[in-house]
C-alpha cells in the first residue's frame, strides 16, 4: 500500500493505492486522526488505485467519518473500483459515506 497526501483549495486529499488492510492501515489512521481532528476539516479519500479493503480499513474510515462529523467537517470518498464498491455495498457502508465516481465530482461537491 502506498499513500499520497496533498491539499487543494483547503481540501485535504488522501490517495491510497494497493491493498488497504490491517497490515497497512496504520499510516492512514494516523493521517486521518490528525486531519479530521481540525474543526470544519474537508477531507477527500481517493480510492481509485485501491485494490482491496478489509474490515479494519473500513473501521478506520468509519472512525474518521464520525470524528469529522463531530467536528462539523466533511469526509468524502471517490473513485472506487468495483470490488471495493461491492464491499461497501455488502456492508451497507455505501449509505453512510458520500461516495463520488471520481475526484472532480467530489471536489465540486465540496464547493456546493
Amino acid at each position: 500500500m502506498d499513500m499520497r497526501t496533498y491539499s487543494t483549495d483547503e481540501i485535504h486529499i488522501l490517495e491510497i493505492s494497493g491493498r488497504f488492510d490491517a497490515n497497512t492501515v496504520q499510516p492512514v489512521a494516523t493521517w486521518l486522526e490528525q486531519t479530521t481532528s481540525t474543526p470544519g476539516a474537508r477531507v477527500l479519500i481517493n480510492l481509485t488505485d485501491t485494490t482491496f479493503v478489509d474490515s479494519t480499513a473500513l473501521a478506520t474510515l468509519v472512525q474518521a467519518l464520525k470524528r469529522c462529523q463531530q467536528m462539523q467537517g466533511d469526509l468524502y470518498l471517490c473513485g472506487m473500483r468495483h470490488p471495493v464498491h461491492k464491499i461497501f455495498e455488502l456492508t451497507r457502508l455505501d449509505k453512510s459515506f458520500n461516495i463520488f465516481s471520481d475526484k472532480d465530482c467530489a471536489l465540486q461537491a465540496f464547493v456546493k
Partner: protein
Amino acid sequence: MLVALLSSQYTRFAALAEAWLSLGATAFGIYQDGRPLVYWPASHRLMRPSLMAPILRGDEELGEIRVTGVKGEAFQQRLRADAALIAYLLQLEEELQLMTADLVISQDQQLALYRLTQSMRDLVTVEEILRAVLAEAIHMLKAQGGFAAFEPLAPDTPLLIQQPDGVLPHAFTWELYRQCSTSERLIICDEASSETAAMGVRSLLHVPIRIRGRVMASLGLVNRSGGFDAPGIKLACALADQAGIQVERTLLYQEMFQQTRMRAEMELARRVQLDLLPRTLPRIAGLEIYAESRPARQVGGDFYDFIVEVERPFIFAVGDVTGKGMSAALLMTMTRTAIHSKSQFMPFPTPESVMRQSNEDLYNDFTRVGVFATAFVGQYAVGSQRLVYANAGHAPVIYRPVGGEAVLLGAESTALGILPDAHFRNQSLRLAPGDVLVVATDGFSDMCGADDTTFGIERLLDLVNRLHHLAPETLAMVLFEEVDRFGQGREQDDDQTIVVIKGAAM
C-alpha cells in the same frame, strides 16, 4: 631529570668516576647550572676543573661533567663521549617515563571501559546506557560537558541527554546529529567559530554511534583542556562502539520482551475467543446445523452463538468485530453478550429488535474506541420452515434454495456501532428441506492467494452451488479445504468462522 637519573643509576656514575680517578684524575663530578649534583671524592668540589663537557639535549644544556688533574685532547674527547652517553641515557629515561605514563593512562582507560561494560549489564533502557556512557566519557576525557542523542525508529520519540543540562542548545545538538548521521563521520572542532564561541564552546568532539548497521545515535563532548588529541578521539570512538553494542543488546531484549508479551496476549485472546463459543451444536427439529471458527494467529473478533430456550424460537448469531488481538477478543465478548442477553431475556425477541437494542448498548463504546461489528441474527420457529433474520453489515451470507442458484444476501443495515439509530429490518427466507444457508465471515472471502488475489465471494457462491447436497459439516469442511488450498500454505490473516444451516425433514 638529571637528578632522577643520578639517583636511579648512582652506582654506574660512581663506577665512571672511579674509572676517571684511576686514569689520573683527582676529582670527577656532575654539575647543573653551576651547582654540584654529585662528585668524587667527597672532599673535592671541583671548583677549578681542568676539563669540562656539557650534557646536551639538542641545544639545551642539561648539565656538565667536570674533572680535575688531567689535561689534553684525548681526555677532553673521552669526557665529551661520556657526556654524550649520559645525554642519551637521559633521553631514554625520559622516553621510558612517557611510555610508562601512557601505559598507566591506557590501563586506567581499559579498566574504566571494563567497569562501564560490567555496569551496563544491569541497565535496561537506552536512556540509562547513554547516560552512563556519556558520564564516563566526560570523566575519562576530562571534558567540561557533553551530550548523547538517540533517534529510534518511529513512532518512538527521539532522546537527547545533556550533562550538565543545557550544555548546548537542543537545536544545535540535533543539527550536529543530522550532520553526523548523514556523513557517518566524527566531527572535531578545536577552534571556536563565532557561532560556537557564543555558546561557550572552545573545542568539540562528536562521534557517531552505529546501531544495527547505521547511525542511530551520537556522543558529543565539549571543551577539553588542550583540545581533543588522537588518543582522546580513539577513546571516544571506543566508548561510542561500546555504547552501540549495548544499545543493540537492549533493543533486542526489548523486542523479545515485546514479542513474548504479544504472544501471551494472543494466546489469551485465542482462549477467550474459543471458550466463549458454544461447546455443542444445537438439535433443532427441521434443521441440520454445523458451526466452526478457526482463529488466525493474530486473533480477530469472530464469534457465533446459539440461543436455545424452551418454548421459544431458536436464535443464532454470527458476528465479526473489527480489529485484532486482545482488544478484538474483548469487544467480541461485549457484542456476543449484548446479542445473547437480548435474545435470551427480551419477552418477544426478533432479529430486528435484538439488533436495535444491541446497537444502542454498544454504539457509544464502539464509537469511543473506533470499531464496529458486523452481525447476522437469525430466528427459526420449529415447524415454520422460515428463517427470520436481520443482517447488520455482515458478509458473506449465501442462500441456496432447493432447485435454485446460490445468492448473496446483502445487509439491510450498517454494522453495529456505526449509526446511533440504524434501520434494522426483519427479513425472511424459506428454510424447507434442502434449502441451505451459509453465514461465514470475511476470513473466507478475504483469504489471500497467489499474486495477492483474494478468494472472493464468487468462488464461495460457486462452491455452495456445487456442494449444496452435502451435509452441513461436510460442506463446511470442503469450504475450509478449498480456502486453505487457495491460500497455498499462507498464514491465515483473519479468523474464519462459518455456520451452515440446512432445512431438513422433521
